[in-house]
C-alpha cells in the first residue's frame, strides 16, 4: 500500500473522485493552477482541466453560493476555504442555504456540497490562521461536520463526503498535514510514513461518516478527541501510564453516541479534548451527551481540555495549545477527583 501524508491523501481522494465521477468539480482560492496554498489540489487542474478545477475570486460567500448552485444543477462541488478562519463571510450561505435547502423544499432540491477547510493552530498563524470553528457548525442542523486525524481517514472520509448527498463541512487539522503531532513542538517532526494510518490505498475506498473510532482500548477512563488532539491524547495517556480508552470522534455531527457512551459507561470516567476555545464549544455537547447517557456510571465529573477562551495568540501558541500537560492534569483529575 502507498504511504501518504494527509495532503497527499486528500489530493488522492479528490483525484479518485474527479476520475470516477464527471459531476465532481473543485473550486476555491488558488486551488487551480497553483494547487492550493497547502498543495492539497496540486496537479489536479493539470490532469482534469480548468473547467473542473476552478480558481475563484476571493469571496468565500460567493464560492459557497456558487457551489450550491452547481450542486442544484447536478454537480458535486468540493469547495476549498483557504483557512477555516475565513469561512465566516460564507456563513450565511452555509447556515441559511446549504443546510436548509433540502428541508425547506421538502426534499425536492438539495446541494451535495463538500466544504474543505484547514483548521487548528500550532503553525505560528496567529489568531486568523489557527481557529477551530467546528463547534459552531455542529449547531447548524442540516450539515454534517467531519474532522479526520490521519491520512487513511482523511481520504476515506473525504470520498464519503463527496459521495454524500448531504452537505459536509470537512475540517482538516493543518498541524498534522505532514505528520502526526504529539503536542511537543520541541521534538523533531515525525512523518506520516512512520504511522500505520499513513498507509493509504491508491484507489477508491470510504470511511463512513457518523462513526467514531476507538484508537486505543482501555478500561479506566475514556478520552474523546478528534483531529490533532487524538495524537496529543495518545501521547499524554502513554506518558501518564493510564489505561485509557481513546476515541477519535471523527464525525462531530451526526455524532456516534453509541460508541462514545458505551465506552464511558464502561470506564466511568471521561475527558473531552479539543483545540477550540472552551466556552460554548463542541466539548460542551460531548460532555452534555455523556452525562445524559452515562450519568449513573460516572465516577467523576467529565473534564474538558481545550484552548483557552481567548483568540489564538501568535507568541503563545504553546501556552495556548491544550498539550499533554493539560490532558495529564485532567486525567489525574478524573482518576483521583478531589
Amino acid at each position, binding site marked *: 500500500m502507498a504511504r501518504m501524508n494527509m495532503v497527499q491523501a486528500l489530493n488522492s481522494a479528490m483525484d479518485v473522485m474527479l476520475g470516477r465521477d464527471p459531476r465532481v*468539480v473543485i473550486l476555491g482560492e488558488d486551488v487551480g493552477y497553483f494547487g492550493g496554498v497547502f498543495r492539497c489540489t496540486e496537479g489536479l487542474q493539470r490532469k482534469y482541466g480548468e*473547467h*473542473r478545477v476552478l480558481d*475563484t*475570486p476571493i*469571496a468565500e*460567500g*460567493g464560492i459557497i*453560493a*456558487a*457551489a*450550491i*448552485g*452547481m*450542486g*442544484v*444543477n*447536478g*454537480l458535486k*462541488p468540493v469547495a476549498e476555504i483557504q483557512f477555516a478562519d475565513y469561512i465566516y*463571510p460564507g456563513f*450565511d*450561505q452555509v447556515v*441559511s*442555504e446549504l443546510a*436548509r*435547502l*433540502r*428541508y*425547506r*423544499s*421538502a*426534499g*425536492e*432540491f*438539495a446541494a451535495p456540497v463538500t466544504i474543505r477547510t484547514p483548521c487548528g493552530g500550532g503553525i505560528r498563524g496567529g489568531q486568523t490562521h489557527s481557529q477551530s470553528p467546528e463547534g459552531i457548525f455542529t449547531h447548524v*442542523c*442540516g450539515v*454534517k461536520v467531519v474532522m479526520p486525524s490521519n491520512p487513511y481517514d482523511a481520504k476515506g472520509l473525504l470520498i464519503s463526503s463527496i459521495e454524500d*448527498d*448531504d452537505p459536509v463541512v470537512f475540517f482538516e487539522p493543518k498541524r498534522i498535514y505532514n505528520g502526526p503531532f504529539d503536542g511537543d513542538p520541541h521534538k523533531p517532526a515525525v512523518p506520516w510514513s512512520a504511522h500505520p494510518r499513513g498507509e493509504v490505498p491508491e484507489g477508491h475506498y470510504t470511511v463512513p461518516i*457518523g462513526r467514531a473510532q476507538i484508537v486505543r482500548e482501555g478500561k479506566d477512563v475514556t478520552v474523546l478527541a478528534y483531529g490533532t488532539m487524538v495524537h496529543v491524547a495518545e501521547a499524554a495517556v502513554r506518558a501518564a501510564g493510564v489505561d485509557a480508552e481513546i476515541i477519535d470522534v471523527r464525525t462531530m*455531527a*451526526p*455524532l456516534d*453516541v453509541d460508541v462514545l457512551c458505551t465506552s464511558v459507561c464502561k470506564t466511568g470516567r471521561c475527558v473531552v479534548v479539543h483545540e477550540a476555545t472552551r466556552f460554548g464549544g463542541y466539548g460542551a455537547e460531548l460532555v452534555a451527551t455523556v452525562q445524559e447517557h452515562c450519568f449513573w456510571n460516572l465516577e467523576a465529573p467529565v473534564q474538558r481540555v481545550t484552548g483557552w477562551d481567548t483568540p489564538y495568540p501568535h507568541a503563545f501558541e504553546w501556552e495556548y495549545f491544550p498539550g499533554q500537560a493539560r490532558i495529564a492534569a485532567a486525567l489525574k483529575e478524573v482518576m483521583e477527583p478531589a
Partner: protein
Amino acid sequence: MTPRSRLHVPSPPARPGQEPDFSYVQISPAGAVGRPDVMAAVRDMEEISVQMVRVLDEENLAVGPWNPHLEPAELQVGLRHMLLTRLFDDRMQKIQRQGRISFYIKSTGEEAVAVAQCMALQPGDMLFPSYRQQGLHVVRGRNLVDLMCQCLSNTRDFCKGRQMPIMYHWGKGNIFSISGNLATQFPQAVGWAMAAAIKGEDRIAATWIGEGSSAEADFHYGMTFAAVYQAPVILNLVNNQWAISTFQGFAGGEHRTFAQRGPGYGIPGIRVDGNDFLAVYAATQWAAQRARQSGGATLIEHVTYRTAAHSTSDDPSRYRPKEEWRAWPLGDPVLRLKAHLIALGEWSEERHALLEKELDAHVTACWKEAESYGTLTAGPSLDPLTMFEDVLKDMPQNLVHQREELRKELEARPKATPAVQPQAKEG
C-alpha cells in the same frame, strides 16, 4: 450634535401627507433607445443602462428597435397570466385578512416582470426568484391549488408545512426554492449557470433581486462571479422604489441607476420600463440570446412600483403618501398591455371583463379545492412527525429519538387533531 452633522442622509421625495413626487425617475420616450447587437462589447452600450428601454408609446402602440413583434395571441396569453397573477394575489390577501393563512406578499403592479420574462425564456431555463415573482409559476402552468396549499401549510403542501406562505418551489417547473433570507439566490443562480456552461448545455438561469436587497453581499458575489466566468445568467434587479419603509435611495439609487452597476463589473446593464410588458420581454430576449451565445450575463433593472404593501404585515401609509401609486409615471402593466391590445384591435373591454370573471371563478374554484385539503386551523392536517424528515437525506439518530419524544408528547396532548401524511402533488 445633529446641527453640526455633515452626513448626507437620503430622503424620499414624499412622506405621508405630502404630494407624491416621481420627478426623480428619468424616463426615455418609447422607442428612443437603441438596441445594440446582443454580442456587442459592454463599453459600447452604456446608453441602455442610463436611459430607459420602452416599447409602448403614448398611443399604446409598440415602437422602436426593442419591439419584440409578438403575435396578438401571445400578448393575450401575457395579459391573461398577469391578470391571473393579480387576481390570485388579491384573493390570497383577502384570505390572509380573514386569518386563514398566516402571511402573504402581493406582486401587484409588478406583474409584467415575472410574466413577460418567463414567457421570453425556455421551459428548461432555471429560475431563481425572490418572493415577488409568483407570476413565474403562473406562466409555467402551475396549478394554483398547489400554491394555495403551500400558503395553507395543509396536507397537500409541497413544502410539507415547513415554509411560510409564498416560499414556493417547483422542481419539475424549474423554479427554485425561495429563501426567507434576501439575496441568497442571486449568486446561486450564477453557480447554476456556471454548471450549465461546464456541462456544455445551453440552458440558462435567471434570478431576481429587489433593489433594496442589492446592498447585500450576495449581489456583489453574483455580479463578480457572473462577470469573471461570463456565466449564462440573467440577473434581474426589480427596482420597485421601496424596500419595506425604505426608499430606493438607501440602496444607492440616488446617485446612479441600478443598471449602471452592470457596466461597473463589465456586464451589460439594461434599464427597462418594468411596467411595459413588451419592453421587459424584449430586454429578456436580448439577454437570453446573449447568454446562450456565450456572451455572458446581463443585469436588467426593472423600473416599477410596489403598488401593494410590502406584505400583509406592513402598513405603507405610515411611511409614504397613501395614494402615491396613482402618481407613478409608468402606469400599470396590466392596463397598459390591455390598452395595447385594444389599440391593435385584438381586445375589448368586454373580453377583458369576461376574462376577469373567468379567472376569478377559477381562483374561487382553486381555493375551494385547496381548502378541502386542510387549513392551518381546521380540516385534515399534516402529520407533525414529518417535521423530522429532510433535515438530512437519512434521518440521523438524534432526530429519530426526538421524533419518538414528540410522538409521546403528542399522544399525551388533550385534543389531538387527526394526522395525515403529506400528499403534495404537482399540477
